[in-house]
């Protein structure tokens, strides 16, 4: 029915993709008015219109464990399974933070470990403010990079058990992943380099004086 996973969808981690969202949460989502009214018949294209209106990320909240609209759209994506190129487009877009976060979270749920690191790590440079709906039903200010860090390093996020991925360290060890260079690292290196060349020049000058 309107909740069924697309017939041609691939299984993810050996199961129906929608099963990544736990049974209880899933059924809560199917019961929301947002799902029934706004998520009906969405495609990867029309879903964008809904995603640009998101005001927060998050899982479920309040005494009733009400699912956020963010979580409804994640389930919708699991249902229709957009092509990988489309998810990358969601992530690459710079204009809509929550479209980017939907793409990143979806990639984290269904992507291969290397892809997950490849497409999520660049978002460490996105410091924009976002809102997260907490379990207690309050908005909390966070940032895109913070949330991406949680996606990469936590076991659970937004009431979803994140599929296991090897640590970055393990992937570096086996040579599958190069050492991550963050913008901050680069700046730090440059500063160090300047300092070093500075002292080197000084030393050279001193040496000349001594001669």
């Amino acid at each position, binding site marked *: 029915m309107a909740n069924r996973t*697309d017939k041609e969808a691939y299984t993810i981690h050996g199961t129906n993709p929608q099963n990544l969202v736990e049974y209880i949460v899933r059924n809560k989502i199917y019961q929301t008015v947002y799902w029934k009214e706004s998520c*009906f*018949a*969405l*495609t990867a294209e029309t879903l964008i219109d809904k995603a640009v209106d998101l005001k927060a990320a998050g899982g479920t909240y309040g005494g009733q464990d009400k699912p956020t609209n963010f979580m409804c759209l994640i389930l919708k994506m699991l249902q229709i399974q957009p092509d990988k190129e489309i998810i990358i487009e969601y992530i690459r877009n710079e204009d809509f933070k929550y479209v980017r976060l939907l793409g990143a979270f979806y990639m984290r749920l269904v992507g291969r470990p290397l892809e997950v690191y490849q497409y999520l790590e660049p978002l460490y440079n996105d410091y924009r403010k976002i809102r997260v709906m907490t379990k207690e039903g309050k908005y909390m200010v966070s940032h895109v990079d913070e949330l991406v860090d949680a996606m990469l390093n936590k076991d659970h996020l937004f009431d979803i058990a994140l599929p296991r991925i090897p640590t970055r360290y393990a992937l570096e060890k086996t040579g599958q992943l190069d050492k991550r260079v963050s913008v901050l690292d680069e700046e730090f290196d440059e500063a160090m380099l300047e300092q070093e060349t500075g002292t080197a020049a000084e030393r050279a000058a001193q040496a000349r004086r001594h001669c």
Partner: protein
Amino acid sequence: MQGPEEKEAEKDGETALDIRKRKRLERDPLHQGLIVQRSHLKGREYQIDLAARLGKTQVVGVNMPLNQQAGYYCSVCDCILRDSQSYLDHINGKWHNRALGMTMRVEKSTVDQVRKRLEENKKKKEEKNDDDYLPDGIDRRILEAEQAEERAQEEKRTRKLEKKQKERQQREEEETEGADADMMAVMGFGGFGTTKK
């Protein structure tokens, strides 16, 4: 919802389920040969405004024609739904959409469609001037408000200045007019027309 169907069933020896199945087929444009293939599921282009009545169950009379009974009437399937929730479930459901000639699967979007949609939304956002709550948005709106105020003050100032200028001009005119009149009286002619002799 079952009332009339059950009565019919007693007459024809069909079970309620048989009738429902038969009616479904009668409403199915594919089965009726009106279409060759069911189309993809498409989104509704209208807004369902149920919020006001949401969750409120309404009493459904038994002997009234379906479309006059209380509740939510679906004209496509000629059936009544008790409340807004079951109505929503119904119009999202397989049989209703099959009657509209659609499957339950949506079209697969292409990357190009997605890019275009993002672009369109970006344009829309720029036109709308973005009511984002974040600091950037606030800063811009404050700036705009300040600029608007400045403009208003500027206008006020120019208006005042113009008014003053006009008053001065008027005063001067009056004064010169007065002077002219005196002068003319002294010189003995009463108007320009008379200067030509």
